């Protein structure tokens, strides 16, 4: 009797957990590998309903992590949504398929300058998903002046009042910009100058911390006066806290673009194209954009924004501000130098 009840208990346990165990593939399925919390779930549901294609969803928190998981063969992905410089690298390493634009008619609606990005000429391998800039988010309760320059976050009067990004590309990149160098420079002198500036900034006690995503929450909570931030996160914070403002400094900054690509390992090419096309459809793109609240690459969606939304530089950067900005290029050949510099700054 006792044995029987144990058996029953075990059986129950297994039926309860069964969904976690690898299940057999039944219908047509694609696996989308995207940033954590970077899509409106109802959009996926709608896609599944309309096409009958099942979507499996996997997350990463940095593109480097994505790269590791991809190359170490963690899983087979049909769609990946990496950032610009990573796309450049993946193209270089021949890991992406060329896209068949006949299957993505909605891609016509992209903002013009995004149709031929520097990292992927003519968008042969990628279709933009969301884009944004890097800038300064500041709290007007703590900051009296108008912030226009990167110099402000190096100003010692803000003691323990600045959050920097724990991302070597962005942090070193904006410092290079401040010092007047190109953001992708390989010039060691420039890099050293940036390094010195960042070390000095830390020594002066300006930095409260080097964080990534936690910044949002902290800035909403009023934990610091300023933070280097991605425009999307900044937008989220602004919506939660009225005293926050976002600016793309005059020295220029980094403009980034996350785009949808199909890896060579993709087994379901047609379904993957269908997904990309679906995401470019203006009504879907609008819905998704309203959820994520990042800048949209679809021209028609910009027109759908209300006036208040158009005002936010974090959501709808002016064209001249974007012109001052640069894409990151792939620096995988230069990573040792960056690694060293970054270690020296943060260690």
């Amino acid at each position, binding site marked *: 009797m006792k044995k029987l009840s144990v058996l029953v208990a075990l059986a129950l346990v297994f039926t309860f957990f069964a969904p976690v165990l690898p299940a057999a593939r039944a219908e047509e399925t694609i696996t989308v590998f995207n940033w954590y919390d970077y899509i409106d779930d109802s959009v996926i549901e709608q896609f599944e309903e309309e096409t009958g294609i099942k979507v499996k969803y996997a997350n990463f928190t*940095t593109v*480097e992590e994505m*790269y590791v998981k991809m190359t170490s063969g963690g899983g087979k992905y049909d769609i990946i949504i990496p950032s610009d410089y990573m796309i450049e690298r993946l193209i270089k390493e021949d890991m992406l398929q060329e896209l068949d634009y006949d299957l993505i008619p909605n891609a016509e609606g992209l903002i013009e300058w995004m149709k031929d990005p520097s990292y992927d000429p003519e968008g042969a391998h990628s279709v933009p998903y969301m884009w944004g800039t890097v800038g300064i988010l500041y709290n007007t309760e703590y900051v009296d002046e108008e912030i226009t320059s990167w110099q402000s976050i190096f100003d010692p009067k803000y003691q323990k009042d600045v959050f920097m990004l724990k991302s*070597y590309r962005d942090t070193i990149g904006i410092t290079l910009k401040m010092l007047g160098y190109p953001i992708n420079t390989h010039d060691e002198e420039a890099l050293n100058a940036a390094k010195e500036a960042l070390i000095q900034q830390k020594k002066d006690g300006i930095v409260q*911390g*080097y964080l990534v995503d936690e910044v949002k929450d902290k800035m909403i909570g009023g*934990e610091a006066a300023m933070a280097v931030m991605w425009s999307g996160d900044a937008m989220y914070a602004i919506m939660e806290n009225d005293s926050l403002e976002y600016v793309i400094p005059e020295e220029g900054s980094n403009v980034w673009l996350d785009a949808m690509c199909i890896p060579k390992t993709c087994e379901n090419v047609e379904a993957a194209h269908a997904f990309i096309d679906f995401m470019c459809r203006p009504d879907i793109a609008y819905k998704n954009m309203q959820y994520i609240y990042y800048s949209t690459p679809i021209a028609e969606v910009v027109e759908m924004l209300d006036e208040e939304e158009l005002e936010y530089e974090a959501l709808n950067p002016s064209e001249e501000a974007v012109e001052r900005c640069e894409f990151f290029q792939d620096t995988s050949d230069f*990573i040792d130098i960056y*690694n060293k510099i970054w270690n020296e700054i943060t*260690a």
Partner: protein
Amino acid sequence: MKRSYFSGPYALWMVLFTICPMIFVLYYAFTNGDGGFSVQSILECLEPTTIRVFLRSVKLAFICTVICLILGYPAAQILASKDFSKYKLLFVLFILPMWMNFLLRTYATMSLLERRGIINTILERFGFEPLTLIGTEGAVVFGMVYNYLPFMILPIHTALKKMDTRVIEAAQDLGANPLRVFTRVIFPLSIPGVISGITMVFMPAVTTFAISRLLGSGNFMLLGDMIETQFLEMHDWSFGSALSMFMMVIIVLSIGLLNRIDPSKGERSGNW
């Protein structure tokens, strides 16, 4: 079938999943990106930045261990004493936090320490100036102490409980005053527990990366952070492996050192 064959599956498993993976660490530590032999990564471990991180890790872990010992020993002693040992639930309360997800607890600690966190809110309400708590070394140590204190209390408590009370009575009988009884009898006899506690606190403290990330606001890179960064951000597996080896060596050395002090050598007190 001999009973000793039963150890077969276990031995096989351990070799397959502890020894073999270590070989990979060794391999990556001694090769460069192209797979050729290279000691560059090993040498990088000796560079000033790495050494700085290493010294900081050891320093913070050491401070944490000392604080845990100072706070934990009396607590263990009180819990084991006649007055309190009957309240078993009290003891349960002390180890209960260990069953909670440690990241969540650390995250909650963050809410306590932030500039506009609970402590500062309380301070301000009473008219004090808010303090900068988060992002300091102090915050990291606080987080470590908070997380690892039960690991110190537990083995010392066990050692004290196991102690034969007649020994203490004998010492009193022989004319020792309470201080003497403690320094000459109780403490020496509890050393195995203390050592066990020190190991259980120092080791995770020296290797942590989540605590320093959350409570140190990324200001203080520790060895654990550095390894994690190498693997997941920089994608430099070679240097990451070299650092891992470096860390192993530290751990092995410190355990060796501790065991030297331990009078009951070889017999790890069976707490964990």
